[in-house]
């Protein structure tokens, strides 16, 4: 049924995938040239691996399970401010870790809002530190992603289907079995795998909210091995463990995704005759309220605290903001150059196994990629001069799997719907992209670009390793403010970071959808 990839699409896709692999492999080679053989993994490393897997599994499971009712509620309700709410609900995902931790602690911390309320009610204090704190933070980050992925898939069910099931008089349970469950089966494994991999590489949040060394993740062990022991070979070994875990999970999940053709529809807003019941309505709005409260209150805390320090912001944050915007813009361009050909290629394959390549960049430790490239570049050029482009590249790689998750299903549908027509008309190569794939996937492209830009805004990444004062990015500047005891100014920088990330996301996302509406 799927259209066979034409030569141009396939070649571009293979080149993009090859480049992705090459960037990661080159970094490994760079590390390998400097690594001296060591004894291998230590006892502490094994407990780090165990903890990493357990927290990632829990985080992914909670994020995905909670996303189902939230996305369903959002998919079948129309209310004032819904579009705005959907945008704001996505914000936690693009938040820099440090900003998110500030917000989460303001709400769930010892001195946070929740404990103040509990204290007023005479209830015991809740502690956010421990494995549950790590999972809470990861759900805060990833529930929006899972919700958005599900929501997009839900909206991809043609409105005509719902009209049909309404005419047939199917019960909500039957609608669920006929329309919604097949859809979930298609989207959930991928979303689960993606979030599992994201949580696998987490480290700052795991340490801070995990409560101590028992919450060491593999990525933290890599960082420590590199920073403290400077044992490159053990760092490389740990990176390989992380790659294998993440890659294995990705492959497994991608292979069990069944191919389900959604079929052609007319893109009308779905009316849900099946969800008019009063209890369903109350349940949906309750779910939306809970989700919005959980995701928006920490953001509110960041805004509230940041406003107080706005007057203290030093001039250097503007230079840092410009650097961060440059990194974000560049990584969006790099991402599109890699993701579009890859998505086009994957969409025309029978199975999605190649998508796992996209996960390479995310599952490889950013610190390892940065260090590897530093070693490679150092003899040739001054790596400091390339600090910002390298950061942009690492960010683009980390965003690649998100972009593919977002783009591939849409492109696959497009290829299936228009495949025969294209073949009949001989539309292929560049015109295929220009007239069929890009316009049909504009909303998804905008969303992917927005995510990438916002994620790169907040990434501290490799820049901390080698950056001269003029190349500081906004997150780094925020750390500098904290390091100089300027906590209020740092809170204001966090707010600025939040605002800029949101602005980039909004512009790209809006731009894509406006184009798609034409």
């Amino acid at each position, binding site marked *: 049924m799927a259209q066979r990839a034409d030569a141009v699409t396939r070649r571009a896709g293979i080149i993009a995938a090859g480049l992705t692999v090459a960037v990661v492999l080159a970094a490994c080679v760079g590390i390998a040239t*400097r690594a001296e053989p060591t004894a291998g993994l230590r006892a*502490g490393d094994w*407990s780090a691996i165990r903890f990493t897997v357990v927290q990632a599994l829990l985080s992914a499971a909670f994020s995905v399970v909670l996303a189902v009712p939230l996305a369903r509620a959002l998919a079948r309700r129309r209310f004032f401010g819904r579009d705005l709410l959907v945008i704001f609900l996505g914000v936690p995902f693009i938040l820099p870790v*440090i900003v998110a*931790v*500030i917000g989460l*602690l*303001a709400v769930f*911390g*010892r*001195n946070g809002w929740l404990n103040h309320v509990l204290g007023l009610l005479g209830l015991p204090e809740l502690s956010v*530190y421990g494995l549950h704190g790590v999972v809470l933070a990861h759900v805060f980050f990833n529930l929006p992603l899972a919700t958005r992925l599900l929501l997009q898939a839900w909206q991809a069910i043609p409105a005509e289907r719902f009209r049909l099931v309404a005419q047939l008089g199917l019960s909500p349970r039957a609608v669920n079995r006929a329309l919604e469950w097949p859809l979930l089966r298609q989207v959930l494994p991928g979303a689960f795998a993606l979030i599992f991999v994201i949580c696998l590489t987490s*480290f*700052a949040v795991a*340490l*801070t*909210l*995990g*409560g*101590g*060394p*028992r919450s060491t993740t593999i990525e*933290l062990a890599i*960082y*420590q091995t*590199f*920073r*403290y022991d*400077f044992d490159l070979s053990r760092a490389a070994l740990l990176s390989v463990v992380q790659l294998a875990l993440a890659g294995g999970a990705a492959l497994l999940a991608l292979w069990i995704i069944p191919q389900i053709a959604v079929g052609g529809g007319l893109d009308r807003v779905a009316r849900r005759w099946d969800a008019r019941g009063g209890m369903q309505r109350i349940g949906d709005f309750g779910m939306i309220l809970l989700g919005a409260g959980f995701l928006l209150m920490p953001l509110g805390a960041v805004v509230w605290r940041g406003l107080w320090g706005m007057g203290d912001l*030093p*001039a*250097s944050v503007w230079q840092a903001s410009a650097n961060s915007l440059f990194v974000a813009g560049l990584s969006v361009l790099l991402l599109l150059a890699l993701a579009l050909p890859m998505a086009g290629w994957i969409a025309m394959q029978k199975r999605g196994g190649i998508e796992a390549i996209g996960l390479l960049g995310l599952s490889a430790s950013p610190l390892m990629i940065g*260090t590897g490239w*530093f*070693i490679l570049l*150092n*003899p040739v050029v*001054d790596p*400091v001069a390339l600090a910002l482009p390298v950061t942009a590249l690492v960010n683009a790689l980390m965003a690649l799997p998100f972009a593919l998750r977002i783009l591939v299903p849409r492109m696959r549908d497009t290829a299936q719907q228009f495949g025969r027509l294209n073949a009949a008309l001989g539309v292929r190569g560049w015109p295929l992209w220009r007239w069929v794939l890009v316009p049909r996937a504009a909303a998804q492209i905008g969303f992917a670009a927005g995510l990438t830009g916002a994620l790169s805004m907040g990434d501290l990444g490799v820049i*901390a*390793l*080698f*950056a*001269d*004062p003029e190349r500081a990015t906004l997150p*780094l*500047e925020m*750390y*500098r*403010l*904290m*390091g*100089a*005891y*300027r*906590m209020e100014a*740092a809170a204001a920088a966090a707010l600025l970071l939040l605002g800029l990330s949101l602005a980039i996301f909004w512009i790209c996302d809006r731009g894509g959808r406006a184009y798609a509406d034409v």
Partner: protein
Amino acid sequence: MRHLALAATTTLIATAAVADTPVLTVYAGDYFTSEWGPGPVIEAEFEKTCDCDLQFSTGDLLPRLLLEGQRTKADVVIGLTSDLTAKARATDLFAPHGQNNADLTLPITWTDDTFLPFNYGHTAFIYNETLMDTPPASFDALLAMPDDVKLVIQDPRTSISGLALVLWVQAVYGERAEEVWGQLAPKILTVTKDWSSSYGMFTDGEADMVLSYTTSPAYHMFAEEDFTKKAAIFPEGHYFMVETVAKIADTDQPELADAFMAFVMSEAFQTQIPTANWSLPSALPRDQWPDGWSQLPLPEKVLFFDEAQAAAVQEQAIEAWRSALTQ
């Protein structure tokens, strides 16, 4: 066309003029060069004394030096603490500093001829006196505090202050370190990757005490006129932290590098340390400290492992911390 040729010539001359000014490249930690850190003033003051251009390059000092090895572009490295100098020394990148250690005003004797101290402080737990009326008066008293007093500390494997803390416990309690960590464990709210996150959590009221430096209250006193933040001073002694500056052996600017080492010991440099780096100057008698600074409560007794001792006990000290806190 002539305009273009003229412009090209002017550009060439301008480039040549810039190239004539020798550049001294100083690797420094990130915090050092921010506009509120000591870097900008030091740069301006030093450039007054030399016909040169001082350029800071920031980042993770030790990993970067280890990665670059002999290819490093640094002429001078400023900011390595004494707990890291053993690893730095092993690179064979450094030359003797050429300054007289007798001019130092440290509370300990300094004999190293390669790494020259430019500031110091002591590891200490900071508290807010309006929120904590009976702060611990000794390390033993800290251990005896109820478990609902919460501390934030830093991970010794990722932060230099966290490393100083485990060495502090090791210096005070020696063999008993693991048992002591076992007593501290229920009071430890969390461990952060770096000092900044910890200190932010403390100022947000998330924890009762934070691991920081004896000079932290000085920032609140002199920059914010906030006199509520205090360091708990322990008679058992406080671990001594010193930051050093060192000269790269095969620098292409040996005279400038030497001039910079001498400048570090000068009053122009040393007087910047308290109010720009919020730490204590290494070569400035106490009576020359800025107003109010000599009244800052400081420990009587300092505990210090030289780099060889620190290197020898580090692994054991971190393991004691890790195993007690993992249980």
